[in-house]
């Protein structure tokens, strides 16, 4: 996967299947899209009202099937990242959310999240593609990203990729 060596460590916050972007960044807070730090205080509020108060920098959002379905609003992964979340793990992701996350440099990892419980301590090696669940002492693999996405992530996101290469460079 990425050429950048990076180990992420943090605690798991579990969510269910079909976490829509309406639950991450609801339409009733449409007016806060121009104020992302303020919007980030409400991240995932409609799925877990206490989440934004509990999450610590480096922690992980762990979903089920089809995480991020719905609207194309990039503000959803942006405020997850702004809240300090190190990566989002899910059994599967909706396409636009997945692509948006890579574009803004938020790792999104597809793995068997049934093997992760609320509050488990995780260590993720992005280079090796391994998630260690320290709490129950097992290792999970995650699917590698396509090369194109690795390049974007390595450059720090899509705007950085375009600026650095003066266009696409795949």
């Amino acid at each position, binding site marked *: 996967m990425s050429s950048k060596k990076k180990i992420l460590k943090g605690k798991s916050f579990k969510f269910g299947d079909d976490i829509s972007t309406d639950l991450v960044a609801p339409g009733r807070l449409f007016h*806060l899209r*121009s104020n992302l730090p303020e919007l980030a205080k409400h991240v995932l509020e*409609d799925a877990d009202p206490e989440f934004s108060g509990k999450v610590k920098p480096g922690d992980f959002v762990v979903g089920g099937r089809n995480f991020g379905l719905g609207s194309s*609003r990039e503000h959803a992964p942006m405020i997850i990242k702004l809240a300090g979340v190190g990566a989002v793990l899910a059994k599967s992701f909706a396409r636009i959310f997945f692509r*948006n996350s890579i574009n803004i440099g938020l790792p999104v990892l597809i793995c068997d999240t049934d093997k992760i419980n609320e509050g488990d301590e995780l260590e993720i090696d992005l280079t090796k593609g391994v998630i260690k669940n320290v709490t129950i002492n097992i290792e999970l693999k995650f699917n590698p990203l396509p090369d194109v996405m690795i390049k974007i992530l390595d450059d720090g996101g899509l705007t950085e990729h375009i600026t650095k290469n003066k266009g696409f460079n*795949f």
Partner: protein
Amino acid sequence: MEKTISEKIISEHAGKELKAGEISVVEVDVVMSQDGTGPLAVSQIKKMGFDSLKNPEKSIFFIDHAAPSPRKELSNSHAILREFARSTDAVLSDVGRGVCHQVLIEDHSCPGDIVIGGDSHTCTSGALGAFATGMGSTDIAVGYSLAKTWLRVPDTIRVNFNGSLNKGVFAKDLVIYLIGRITSDGATYRAIEFGGKVSSTMDMDGRFTISNMAVEAGAKTGLFDSDNITKKYLENQGRGGCFREISADLGAVYEKVLDIDCSVIEPMVSQPHTVDNALSVRDLEKIKIDQVFIGTCTNGRLSDLRVAAEILKGKKVADGLRLLVAPASREVYLDAMKEGILATFIESGAAIQNPGCGPCVGVHQGILADEEVCLSTANRNFKGRMGNTDSFIYLSSPATAAWSAIRGYIADPREKS
């Protein structure tokens, strides 16, 4: 090589032969965003240091989701879009013009185009035979700046709507039935091609409804062949010149082919809080409703309003029920006015809203109270979608919505006659 519609269009725009699974940078024809995603796209364009757009005449900024603005923060976002469009010579579609996807099909998207939009329902233009897909603001910012994006050529699921439609059954019922069957991620990363006799004889308004909701099964786009019906539609729009015929090659390779016998499909609803929670109206318990909303990029077109008005003619909406109607565009609004459709709605007790997204996104114009139930012709019923997590949204066709508005609970439009 025999190709799917996606393989054809993406190969043309990449300047090389591509098949499903391959990734390439491609030229894009139309790029758009709306007031929820445009301001972020503008700041990303500025961050990359671009001060002009590659194809300003095909770069569109829509103000439709919170239009007219219900609060100052959004007014300021709108001002950013107006100023940026002015300074870059991009196209601005301001308050009252209509929902982005409707205006795209009326004025901008053509068969064979690649259309990218900062809105997940950009797939609506797929009904014209365009490869049209939703993306986030950063991808859209790059699209505006370079008229390029990167795409993975999707695998395609072919859905054949066979047989014929029962009375009281519409395109919306077919697509809700389909999503119920394949679920909300049944087509993730795939394109859906719609074929079969029902698709090939369906009018454009019906096709737009179905393509619009392809993303509700996770699809990247939902494509129809562009045929004589497409041609006639474009000619009526004064855009006959952009017609070209596009269909999949015989022998194109599909990941899956789904044959659906439409004669078994009844009027359908999506129950809270997911679109794939589908059920026939007949099998639904008696659900009392507080608000009915007819409109949106899914079902706010002339034929939708016409069907609803025919049902409402000479009748009143149920006591205590609010009926909101938002034509999808200025053009639809004017046509509906000339036909007397708006008068019928108003006489029945409806409130007509300006063209735009109306209450669909939960920003304004009809936010639900706690425990309230709305029957909407929109495409999404996620928890909190209409501005209140303690409310409930059902989705249906305009016919079911109109008949239910009269009855006061979700009711089968076939009861009417």
